[in-house]
């Protein structure tokens, strides 16, 4: 389903009307209905998502109430992963494009685009196959911030686009949430900046549910059963590679550690990203 909506139409999203310069016309593809614009949470972050960022999304989204709509910018990295995880956990999702409504940008994510069209909503204030320009990205960010009641910053370097969106949302009077990160990561510096100014720090989806006044206790921890493996206990505190584990357990040889790690992964107690193992 594709179409357009003007700012005088009743179906025009209410939240967006409240910002200083709302788009006069919005083009859309997908499920355009009233519910999808309720309880919108904008999720922003770096184009270069770290494995940590992916795990944050997985963990927080798995505990979000299904009434929440995830709004993001369809760029690769955190944006695209937010859409993917939203679809994975059955949340509604809106992708706001920086380009014409008929253009898929970035084009490599065609599959995701089609999935959003069928299960969520694609929005743009530009017509046809208008190419994205440097100036269209902040315009897009204003819609992302404007649609949402709150913005969640997953990962952001200082002076990044994600920070611009967060500040914009703050100026619209919306709430901003950040997820704590490692102080050794560059993608944490932006989050520190805004949490010193206005943002609230959260570490699970339950605080977001609370913010939206939604009562949802979630489906967490059913899979992550307690296992008395020594390796698992170590991974719970710090993510490690197989070589790190070898240092912790000098008595076990590499083949034993590899074996145990495979079995733990298959039981979904731990996950692996680029050779590093993390406890679930």
């Amino acid at each position, binding site marked *: 389903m594709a179409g357009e909506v003007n700012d005088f139409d009743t179906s025009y999203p209410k939240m967006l009307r409240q910002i200083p310069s709302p788009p006069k016309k919005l083009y859309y593809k997908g499920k355009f209905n009233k519910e999808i614009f309720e309880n919108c949470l904008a999720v922003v972050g770096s*184009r270069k998502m770290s494995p940590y960022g992916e795990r944050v999304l997985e963990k927080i989204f798995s505990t979000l109430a299904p009434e929440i709509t995830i709004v993001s910018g369809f760029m690769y990295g955190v944006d695209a992963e937010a859409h993917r995880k939203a679809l994975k956990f059955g949340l509604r999702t809106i992708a706001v494009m920086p380009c014409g409504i008929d253009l898929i940008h970035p084009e490599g994510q065609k599959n995701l685009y089609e999935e959003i069209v069928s299960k969520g909503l694609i929005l743009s204030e530009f017509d046809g196959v208008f190419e994205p320009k440097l100036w269209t990205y902040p315009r897009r960010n204003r819609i992302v911030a404007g649609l949402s009641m709150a913005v969640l910053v997953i990962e952001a370097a200082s002076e990044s686009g994600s920070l611009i969106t967060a500040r914009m949302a703050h100026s619209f009077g919306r709430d901003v949430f950040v997820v704590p990160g490692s102080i050794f990561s560059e993608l944490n510096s932006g989050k520190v900046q805004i949490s010193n100014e206005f943002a609230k720090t959260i570490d699970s989806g339950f605080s977001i549910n609370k913010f939206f006044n939604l009562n949802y206790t979630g489906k967490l921890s059913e899979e992550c059963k307690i296992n008395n493996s020594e390796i698992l206990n170590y991974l719970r505190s710090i993510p490690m590679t197989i070589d790190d584990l070898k240092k912790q357990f000098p008595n076990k040889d590499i083949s034993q550690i590899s074996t145990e790690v495979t079995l733990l992964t298959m039981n979904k107690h731990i996950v692996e990203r680029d050779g590093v193992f993390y406890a679930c």
Partner: protein
Amino acid sequence: MLVKVKSIANRGMQTFGVDVEVNISNRGIPGLEIVGLADKSVAESRDRVKTAFQNSGLQFPNKKITINLAPADLNKEGSFYDLPIATGLICALLEVPVPECSLFFGELSFDGSLRHTKSSFLLSLYAKENNLNTIFVPQSCAKEAASIGGLSVYGVEDLSSLVDHLTGKNLIEKYCNLDSENEAYFDKDSSEYNYVVGQGQAKRALQICASGGHNLIMIGPPGSGKTMVAKSINSIIPDLSEEESIEVTKIYSLVGKIPPNFGLLKKRPFRSPHHTISYAGMVGGGNNPMPGEVTLAHRGILFMDEFSEFSRQVIESLRQPLENGKITVSRSRFSAEFPCRFTLIASSNPCPCGFYGDPNHQCTCTENKIKNYRAKLSGPILDRIDIHVNVLPVEKKLLIKDSFSSSNETLDFIKNKVANTRLIQQKRFKDEKIFTNSEIANSQIDKFCSFGEGAKRLLEQAIDAYCLSARAYFKIIRVARTIADLDEKSDIEINHIAEAVQYRSKFFL
């Protein structure tokens, strides 16, 4: 007067017999002419032989001399026809018989001495096959030629000693190989396995790779020790078996890479071509096709550092060699088949800047750049690589601290384990044409890989849990087979499968 002397001609790896016919005639304008499709290096033999004669105090006849290299339709190249031509002339002039069932081979120097000449090993192989039990080669080639055994090898020092031998005045002594110790010819650029600090997983992978001949790829940021790990394989891989040694020596003899006074090669070849290598340099080429790096790495290691920097054509050209263990180089005049059963060890950075996934550095590449970089590696080549390992930088404090002794596995222990695993495989495949587990075809998996209790079930679960392809399934079984052999177990057990799963391809799905 007509004299016939036997010699050879090489075409690729094939050797043909050549008759060098020398005719000295009293009629006609004096001079020396060579016929029989001789190339420049053979034609120049005329001047070398003439000058060598004069400088050895022999009278060069002032008559019409014609030399025919038969069969006349086979191209001849190389400088080794000097000795057969000179022998023919001596026998014709001094009217002594040419020794029976003998092959002559070698390049002359102006002073009458014989120079080290390439491919004498091929000569002795040909001699043995054709029951020609005597060969005359330059002194420095005698060990190489004699290493096959069962031949009378005469190492000729210079022309005058040859004259003395042919006339029976003073016989050259038959070469006999007194020292049969291992030749350490490839041993120049290796790091010792137990001096590699940290990198336990990569080292374990290397052990499996050395034992089962599996191809290995290591991916990690610069400076993490990939190259050092790869080179340390030289210190744990067992020497060539006799059969393999003959195959390898033949190749190295053909390209003239056996130094003077060396015999059979015992160490496995380790080739590490630079990434600017040309296509022909990798697979072989030339008008008269000569082997490339893949063939020089036969029965040994082909190490491709910075794998993704190699040109696309070079990487793709590895497909056939990796699959069949041989390569056919076809040129308009001739096509040659070279063996190239090598173990590939590749190393690569995870992205163009190199720091993707490095805990200490920020990667500066865009998503697209990383995608394009990895696209070069994906596809059929990666499918042929059984073991994939992530290598992360070693912590500096580990390097500073003297932790060499922390490993309870000494070099000798590992070496024995690897050698033992190779022996187990040799027994398993004695009726097959393969040597290692990495060569097991998918159709042979059932025959050679039996599973212990629960192992197959675990494998099936792993396929589901990790979303692995059918190809990955066979790869895991092959690697698990080697791990079980390292464990000296006849059945593949649960822990072998579980470990093998860790070496699956994770990077380029």
